[in-house]
């Protein structure tokens, strides 16, 4: 069996096996799926280590030109490694997590998601990628709907399904057009002769691919299911799919489409950077004022996507490297952060910031992991987030549009400010009376958090390692020529980041003073500022949520209009002919009343008409 098939088929087979195991067995399902995840991780590592010897596979599938082709070039192998790592971490984390719904179905969904994500990462044919990519929809839905037995979970599952389903259809159409223009479905073949945005069809196709990619990554405006899922589903789900898998796949394909398949132009670069900057700012503004641990994190998961899109949108090697590096860094610390949220929820039973506080003394390890990951996401040196953000900043400056650079810096300021608020209100400050007996999280939860926090540190202090081992070769494999990526200089950018940190700290002090010392109210001075207050109120009422807007305003109107057209055709084929026929039969019925003189008159009149007609047509013969 080809090595490349293991990451796809081993989780699939294990998922099938898990379904056969009774719900009542203790730890059997957990051990089985963790073992499968670890073996897959080893296989992924092996695939990566065998590079530059590229593993590939081609099987007949649906006819000529549509083979089942997989190809693990460096970017794919790197992505596969990341997918396997997070799957293993979540499997272990979920060992003793009670609030995840039925554990049988939880692990089934987890393993299926892993298998399909691995398939999407390894696919060389666009159709194979689409097959796995769109297949994730099923498990996204079942994951959310089975994570909680609540109406909210069911609604959010439908919302996530529909948003992703509709954008996946865009991706489908984009892929059909791309494949037709290029004359092949295999990405490695398309890349030899990149497509350009010189004519309408290719622009249309690229935009459709873009919609599919950024929607998967959870960028605005396709993000709105993520904050809902934060409250309506489990922490492992949040740590796995919106924080890790979706981001990895979305940004991976964005990089593939924007650099590998298409040769973009300046205008499209501006579009991408604008989308990125807008996502950074709008989402972080929302994150800043959240009052729920997981909901706050989920808005950051959206906001951070903006950095990756911005980085790739610069189209210069530094920016693209920054985007990809940020992708892996974000998955690491965001997954870790959601895990800390899960631990706190597990031990305290709540995620409401106003009910938490002072937990650092009682949950010191969770607290330390939180601090590391929060420092990383806020871009504080020397953690990993600092280095990837630095690359994105440099890329944005090099692109010649400094506006995007300033947007990214402003985003960092607000990110740090909101993590000061979050950390302060959960881990420091006053411990509420009812949480006096809180215990540290169990070992199975601490272990994956520790591993991810360690990566945050390792990829920070040793940022040259991932940049030289992973990001650099990945850029080579998609044909981006680049100079040295690693290297720290205490230049202007560094001092600016120190200023941003100081500004965020001052802002937090101001907020505390305004909020009467309560950390959970440290954002109120901005939340309830003039103008912003109204904007926030509208956002809370989902005025800007395209899904709610579409489902409430657009879809019913369109559907009603279509329905009335349908009723019109029904009238044409049913009511109209039957009433016409009825009219004539009633009319002729009136003449059949049995009166002899009437019949005689009708006969004579008919004869007269006949003679007249005959006479007009040349006379009687």
């Amino acid at each position, binding site marked *: 069996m080809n090595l490349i098939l293991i990451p796809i088929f081993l989780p699939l087979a294990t998922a099938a096996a898990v379904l056969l195991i009774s719900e009542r067995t203790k730890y059997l399902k957990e051990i089985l799926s963790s073992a499968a995840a670890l073996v897959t991780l080893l296989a992924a590592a092996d695939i990566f280590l065998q590079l530059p010897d590229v593993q590939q596979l081609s099987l*007949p*599938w*649906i*006819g*000529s030109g549509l083979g089942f082709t997989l190809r693990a070039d460096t970017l794919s192998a790197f992505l596969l490694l990341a997918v396997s790592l997070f799957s293993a971490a979540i499997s272990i984390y979920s060992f003793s997590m009670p609030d995840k719904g039925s554990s049988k179905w939880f692990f089934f969904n987890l393993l299926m998601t892993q298998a399909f994500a691995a398939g999407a990462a390894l696919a060389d044919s666009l*159709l194979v990628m*689409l*097959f*796995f990519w*769109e*297949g994730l*929809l*099923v498990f996204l839905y079942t994951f959310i*709907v089975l994570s909680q037995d609540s*109406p909210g979970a*069911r609604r959010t599952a*439908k919302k996530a*399904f*529909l948003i992703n*389903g*509709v954008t996946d*259809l*865009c991706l*489908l*159409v984009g892929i*059909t*057009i791309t*494949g*037709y223009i290029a004359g092949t479905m295999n990405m490695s073949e398309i890349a030899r002769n990149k497509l350009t945005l010189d004519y309408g069809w290719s622009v*249309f196709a690229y935009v459709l691919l873009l919609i599919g990619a950024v929607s998967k990554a959870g960028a605005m405006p396709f993000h709105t299911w993520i904050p809902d899922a934060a409250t309506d589903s489990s922490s492992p789900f949040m740590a796995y799919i919106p924080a890790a898998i979706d981001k990895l796949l979305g940004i991976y394909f964005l990089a593939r489409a924007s650099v590998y398949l298409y040769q973009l132009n300046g205008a499209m670069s501006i579009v991408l950077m604008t989308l990125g900057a807008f996502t950074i700012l709008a989402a972080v503004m929302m994150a800043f004022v959240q009052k729920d641990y997981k909901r706050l994190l989920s808005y950051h998961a959206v906001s951070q996507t903006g950095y990756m899109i911005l980085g790739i949108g610069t189209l210069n090697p530094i920016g693209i490297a920054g985007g990809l590096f940020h992708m892996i860094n974000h998955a690491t610390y965001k997954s870790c952060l959601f895990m800390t949220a899960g631990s706190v929820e597990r031990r305290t039973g709540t995620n409401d910031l106003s009910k938490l506080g002072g937990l650092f003394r009682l949950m010191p390890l969770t607290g330390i992991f939180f601090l590391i990951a929060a420092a990383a996401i806020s871009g504080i040196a020397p953690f990993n987030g600092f280095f990837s953000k630095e690359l994105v900043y440099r890329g944005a400056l090099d692109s010649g549009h400094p506006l995007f650079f300033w947007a990214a810096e402003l985003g960092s300021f607000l990110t740090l400010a909101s993590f000061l608020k979050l950390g302060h209100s959960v881990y420091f400050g006053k411990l509420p009376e009812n949480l006096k007996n809180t215990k540290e999280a169990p070992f199975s939860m601490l272990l994956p958090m520790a591993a991810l926090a360690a990566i945050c540190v390792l990829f920070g202090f040793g940022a040259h390692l991932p940049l030289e081992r992973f990001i650099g070769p990945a850029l080579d494999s998609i044909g981006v020529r680049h100079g040295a990526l690693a290297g720290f200089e205490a230049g202007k950018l560094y001092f600016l980041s120190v200023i941003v940190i100081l500004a965020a700290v001052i802002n937090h002090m101001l907020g505390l003073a305004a909020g009467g010392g309560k950390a959970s109210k440290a954002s109120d001075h901005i939340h309830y500022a003039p103008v912003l207050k109204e904007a926030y109120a509208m956002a809370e009422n989902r005025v800007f949520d395209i899904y709610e807007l579409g489902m409430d305003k657009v*879809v*019913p109107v*369109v*559907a*009603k*209009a*279509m*329905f009335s*057209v*349908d009723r019109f*055709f*029904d009238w*044409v*084929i*049913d009511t109209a002919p039957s009433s016409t026929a009825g009219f004539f039969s009633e009319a002729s019925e009136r003449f059949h009343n049995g009166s002899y003189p009437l019949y005689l008159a009708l006969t004579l009149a008919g004869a007269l008409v006949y003679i007249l007609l005959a006479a007009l047509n040349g006379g009687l013969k």
Partner: protein
Amino acid sequence: MDLPIKMLTTAVAVPVFGAFLIPFAGRVSSSARNAFAVLLGLFTFAAAASLLSPVLGRGAVDYVIAFPRGFDLILHADLLSVFMATVSSFVSAVILIYSLDYISHYENQTEYYTMVVLFLGSMMGLVFSANLLWMYVFWEMTGFASWRLVGFFRSDRDVAKANKTILVTVFGALCMLIGIIMIYANYGTLDLRALHGQAITFTAAVFILAGILSKSATLPFSTWLPDAGVAPSTVTSLLHAAVLVKIGVYAYARIFGVTFAAPEAFSTMVLYITGASALISAGAALVETDIKRIIAYSTISQLAFIFLGLASGNKTAFIGAILYILMHSVAKGGLFLCAGIIEQKTHTKDINRMGGLFRSMPFTGAAFGLCSLSIMGIPPFGGFFGKYLVFAGAAQNGSLGVLLMFLFGAMMTLLYLARLFYKVFLGEPAGHESPKEGSYTMVASVMALALISLALGAFIYYPASYASLLTATLGVNLQ
């Protein structure tokens, strides 16, 4: 007469003549009648499926009974007709098995079984006929059987809807007859084998199209199909999945796909008509609240995708359409049979009075969900491949307007099916006392169809290579 020819003749003759023996079996006992009907269905499926290997091996199998003036009865088994016959008879056999429980609560069961088997038999006759006149004859026979089946219940409303069905489809069939006569006037023969690769005039094509659209419930003749939902669910399942609406697409594939080279303008017209049909019926599916009417509108909308594949004029799209017929038959059959279980257990068809049914009917719910996913075209279900290939063909065809219409149509498919599933199975329960799961045979039938939808996706290699071979050997004028 060698074995394949025997199989070909029995696949048509056994259900057509067997149907008339069902009333006699009914005289013996009701279980003998039921067993006989199911056996007829299974036998027809076996006979049709047994033709797969001869047509794959040596091409066509023919059987001719000569009639004067070129009106010979020609039974012609090729890749397309055997495919269609196998799919229809398989779904029909599942529906017959499901009927054993479902219909046992009603009167007139003998008439029901007779008409179902006659329906199946005339479908077999239609697909295997290689003479347009005989196609027309069988076409009208299916119309007759559907008329009696839609009017299975005898209230005025049911009879009126049944009359609507027959009147609309017969109007279309008569238009088609005019088209057939025009072909006869042009070529002096109605033998499709002899007409292979000939040109067809635009007018004749439009007349035939009227017949096809009325049978396949496409705009502007679509609304009889949701109205036919008054019939028992097994009948609607039969109409939607196996027999009636597939007749139109089959005739389109047979006449314009593998026989005549249709004029360019004609194909373009079909694309726009069906695109509008996809959108309008999807909109109606979002408005309706009757579960069977929603699924019926979904059929109208999905048929448009099949027409998109057939009329796009390239091989990719044609393969897609063939796969779409297969996937849609299986999944739509499953959906209607699920609706049958729900209707029987909740005693309502109004989705606002359901909600939360998943808790008490998990298997029906799962089957419904799986079949919906296949219709939506979500991988790894079979429907994905049909949808993808049809879109790929449309992209190759290069008409942006058509592509966008169908893209929106596909998005709306997601919307109405997700809404339906949510409302029926997950939403807040609306004043029903948790109905029980359906009987064993019924649930097994729907589960079988749902799992087959999944298996068809997992083993797509086999149906796809069959469809490719079909397109490569029979397709006319495809790029």
